[in-house]
C-alpha cells in the first residue's frame, strides 16, 4: 500500500502548527521523491501531542508528536515512512494508555477520518443507524432509546426518550429538531471536536430524531466563536443533501428532513434552550419562563425537540448497535459513555470518552497526568457554573447522581484543573464577572445579584474589616440566586462560589488589608 500520513485539521491542532507541519512534510516528500499520501483528518483529542503525525504502513500505524515543521527532516531521516525510531515516536497511537483505557463510541472515528468525506464516514459505520431505524420503524427505535438509558448530554441529563415522547404526542404536526451547539462553557470542547471532526454523525443523529418525532426541519445553532465548526457543518449539510441523507427523501424513505446551520452572535446565554430558540427566531436571547416546555411550544411556537450535540451524535450508535449495547456501558442510572474534556493546568489535556464509572482522581491523574507544575489544587467539573472539588473528592465516581449527592455537578463533563498558584477568591470573582457579563437581564436575581456578589468578593479580596458579615451576605445572596433565578445561569452560580468558600475559606477571609 501507499504510505499514508494522517495529520489533524482540527482548529486547535492548526493553532498548534498542524498546517505548517503538513506543508513541510509535503515539501520534504516531494524533494526526496518519496511517495506518500498526506491526509487531513479529525483530531484524536490528544492535544498535548499535537501536531500529531500518524503513519499508516503495511506493518501498522505509528504516531509521532508533538511535531514541528523543523522536525520533518530528522523524522524522514529516521525512517518515518516505515515507523522508524525517533525521539518523538509514540508507537501505535491506539496502544497509548490514554486511548486504551477509553471506550470511544461517539468519537470512534476521531483521528481516523476526513471530516467532510462521506465515503470515510460510510466506511466506518456511518448511516448504518439511520438505515436500521428505517428498517425497524420509529416505535421500535423509541423502545431501543429507552432501553439505552440515554440522558441529555448538555448538562441537565434529562432522559431522552421522555422528551421525545412528549414532542411526538403533540397534536401540532409542524415540529422542529434543534441542536444546541452553543458550547460556551469554559473547559468544554467535545462539541467543537465533533462538529469540526465528524459532522455527519450529528446530521445522522438529527435525521434519526426527526424521523421519530415527525419533524421536517432542523436547526443547528453554533456559537460564533467556532467559525471552523460552522463552515464544516455547512459543507457537510450540502454534501449530505446531495447524497440523499438530508432533503426531500432521506435515504429512500420518502420522508423529508432539512437542516439549517445558524451562527450565534456572542451570547453565552443562548446555550440555554429557550434563549437559543428566541435567538433563532430573531430576537434578543432572553430566557423564557416555563411552562410551556419547548416540547410543547418551542421554536416558532411549535413542538420542538432540543438536544445537545453529543446527545444527537449518540443516536447513530444506539440505532446501529441497539439500546442494550449502549446501556451495557456505565453504571446505575448513568448509562453509555460520557465525553469528558480535560483542561486548565493538567499535563495531558484532551478528550476522554469513557463509560460512566471511573473516579475523578483517575481522570485527573491517570488521564490528565496531574498538574504541569506543582500539584492540582482543585478541579471544576461541568463548566463555569460547576462546583470546585479538591483531591479529597477524587474518589467520586463519574456518575450524575454521585456528583449531585456531593453537592456538585457532572454536567457535560468538562474538567478544569488549577494548580497551587490559583487564587480561589479570584475564581469566585470570575464567576460573578462572567454571570454579570452574560446575564440576559430578564430576571433580577441574576442581573443585579451577579454585580452585587462581585462587589462583595472584591471587598473580601481587599481585606474586608467585616469579613464574617460579608461571607454571610455572600451566602445569602447565592441562596437567592439559586432559588429565584429564571434559568441555570443565576440558578447555578452558587456552585462555584460556595464550593470555593467551603474548601478555601481562608482565601476569602484572611487576606488582610492590602
Amino acid at each position: 500500500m501507499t504510505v499514508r500520513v494522517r495529520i489533524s485539521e482540527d482548529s486547535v491542532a492548526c493553532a498548534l502548527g498542524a498546517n505548517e507541519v503538513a506543508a513541510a512534510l509535503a515539501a520534504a516528500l516531494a524533494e526526496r521523491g518519496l511517495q506518500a499520501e498526506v491526509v487531513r483528518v479529525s483530531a484524536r483529542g490528544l492535544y498535548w501531542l499535537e501536531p500529531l503525525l500518524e503513519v499508516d504502513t503495511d506493518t501498522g500505524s505509528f504516531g509521532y508528536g508533538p511535531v514541528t515543521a523543523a522536525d520533518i527532516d530528522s523524522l524522514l531521516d529516521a525512517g518515518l515512512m516505515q515507523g522508524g525510531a525517533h525521539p518523538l515516536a509514540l508507537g501505535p497511537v491506539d496502544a497509548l494508555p490514554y486511548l486504551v483505557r477509553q471506550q470511544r463510541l461517539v468519537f470512534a472515528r476521531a483521528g481516523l477520518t476526513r471530516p467532510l468525506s462521506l465515503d470515510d464516514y460510510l466506511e466506518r459505520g456511518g448511516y448504518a443507524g439511520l438505515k436500521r431505524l428505517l428498517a425497524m420503524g420509529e416505535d421500535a427505535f423509541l423502545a431501543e432509546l429507552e432501553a439505552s438509558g440515554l440522558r441529555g448530554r448538555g448538562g441537565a441529563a434529562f432522559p431522552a426518550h421522555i422528551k421525545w415522547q412528549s414532542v411526538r404526542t403533540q397534536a401540532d404536526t409542524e415540529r422542529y429538531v434543534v441542536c444546541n451547539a452553543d458550547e460556551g462553557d469554559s473547559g468544554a470542547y467535545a462539541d467543537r471536536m465533533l462538529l469540526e471532526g465528524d459532522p455527519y454523525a450529528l446530521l445522522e443523529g438529527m435525521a434519526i430524531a426527526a424521523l421519530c418525532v415527525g419533524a421536517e426541519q432542523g436547526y443547528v445553532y453554533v456559537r460564533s466563536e467556532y467559525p471552523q465548526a460552522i463552515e464544516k457543518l455547512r459543507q457537510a449539510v450540502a454534501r449530505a443533501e446531495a447524497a440523499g441523507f438530508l432533503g426531500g427523501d432521506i435515504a429512500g424513505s420518502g420522508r423529508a428532513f432539512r437542516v439549517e446551520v445558524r451562527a450565534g452572535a456572542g451570547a453565552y446565554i443562548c446555550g440555554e434552550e429557550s434563549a437559543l430558540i428566541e435567538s433563532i427566531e430573531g430576537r434578543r436571547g432572553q430566557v423564557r419562563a416555563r411552562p410551556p416546555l419547548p416540547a410543547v411550544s418551542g421554536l416558532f411556537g411549535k413542538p420542538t425537540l432540543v438536544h445537545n450535540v453529543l446527545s444527537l451524535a449518540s443516536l447513530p450508535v444506539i440505532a446501529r448497535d441497539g439500546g442494550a449495547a449502549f446501556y451495557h456501558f456505565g453504571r446505575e442510572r448513568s448509562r453509555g459513555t460520557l465525553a469528558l474534556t480535560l483542561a486548565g493546568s493538567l499535563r495531558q489535556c484532551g478528550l476522554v470518552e469513557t463509560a460512566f464509572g471511573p473516579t475523578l482522581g483517575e481522570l485527573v491523574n491517570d488521564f490528565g497526568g496531574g498538574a504541569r507544575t506543582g500539584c492540582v489544587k482543585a478541579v471544576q467539573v461541568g463548566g463555569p457554573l460547576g462546583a470546585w472539588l479538591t483531591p479529597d473528592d477524587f474518589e467520586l465516581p463519574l456518575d450524575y447522581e454521585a456528583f449531585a449527592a456531593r453537592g456538585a455537578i457532572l454536567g457535560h463533563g468538562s474538567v478544569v484543573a488549577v494548580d497551587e498558584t490559583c487564587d480561589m477568591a479570584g475564581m469566585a470573582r470570575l464567576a460573578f464577572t462572567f454571570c454579570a457579563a452574560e446575564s440576559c437581564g430578564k430576571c433580577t436575581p441574576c442581573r443585579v445579584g451577579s454585580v452585587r456578589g462581585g462587589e462583595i468578593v472584591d471587598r473580601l479580596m481587599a481585606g474586608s474589616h467585616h469579613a464574617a458579615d460579608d461571607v454571610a451576605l455572600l451566602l445569602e445572596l447565592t441562596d437567592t440566586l439559586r432559588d429565584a433565578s429564571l434559568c441555570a445561569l443565576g440558578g447555578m452560580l452558587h456552585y462555584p462560589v460556595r464550593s470555593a468558600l467551603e474548601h478555601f475559606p481562608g482565601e476569602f477571609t484572611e487576606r488582610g488589608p492590602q
Partner: protein
Amino acid sequence: MTGPLTDEALAALIESHRRQKGALLPLLHAVQAACGYIPETAIAAIAKALRISRAELEGVVSFYADFRRSPPNLHRLRICRAESCRATGSEALWLAAQGAPADIDVEAVYCLGACAASPAAEYDGRLLCRLDPARVARLLQEGKS
C-alpha cells in the same frame, strides 16, 4: 475583505433573507460580513423589510456582543479570560496587551473552545494557543505596522 455597503448590495442581502424564517440574525451577520458593522442605513432598511420596529431591532443588535454599530478597528485581539485560560496565565496576557497600539482593539472573550491548549486568544480571526506574554507583545508590534 469588507468595504462600504452600497444600497444595492444591502437590498440584495435583504432580498436573499426576507423569506427565511427567523431571518434577523442571519441577515445581521450577512450585513456585518459585507461591511464590518451594522450601518445606520441597514437599520432602517432591515426594520422596514422585516416589519419590526427600529427599537426592537436596536435591542437585538445591542444584545449580541458580535454586532457592532460602528466600523471596526484595523485589528482585533480577543483574549480568553475564562477558567481554563485563567488557570494557565491569561491575566498576564491581558496585562501584556494593555499597551496595545490604537489600531488594535483588545477585548475579553469567554472561551474559544481551545481549553486543551490554554491560554488562548484570537487575532483577526486566527486562533492562537499556548500563548505567553512575549508572543502577545510581538503580535502587538506586528499589528502596528
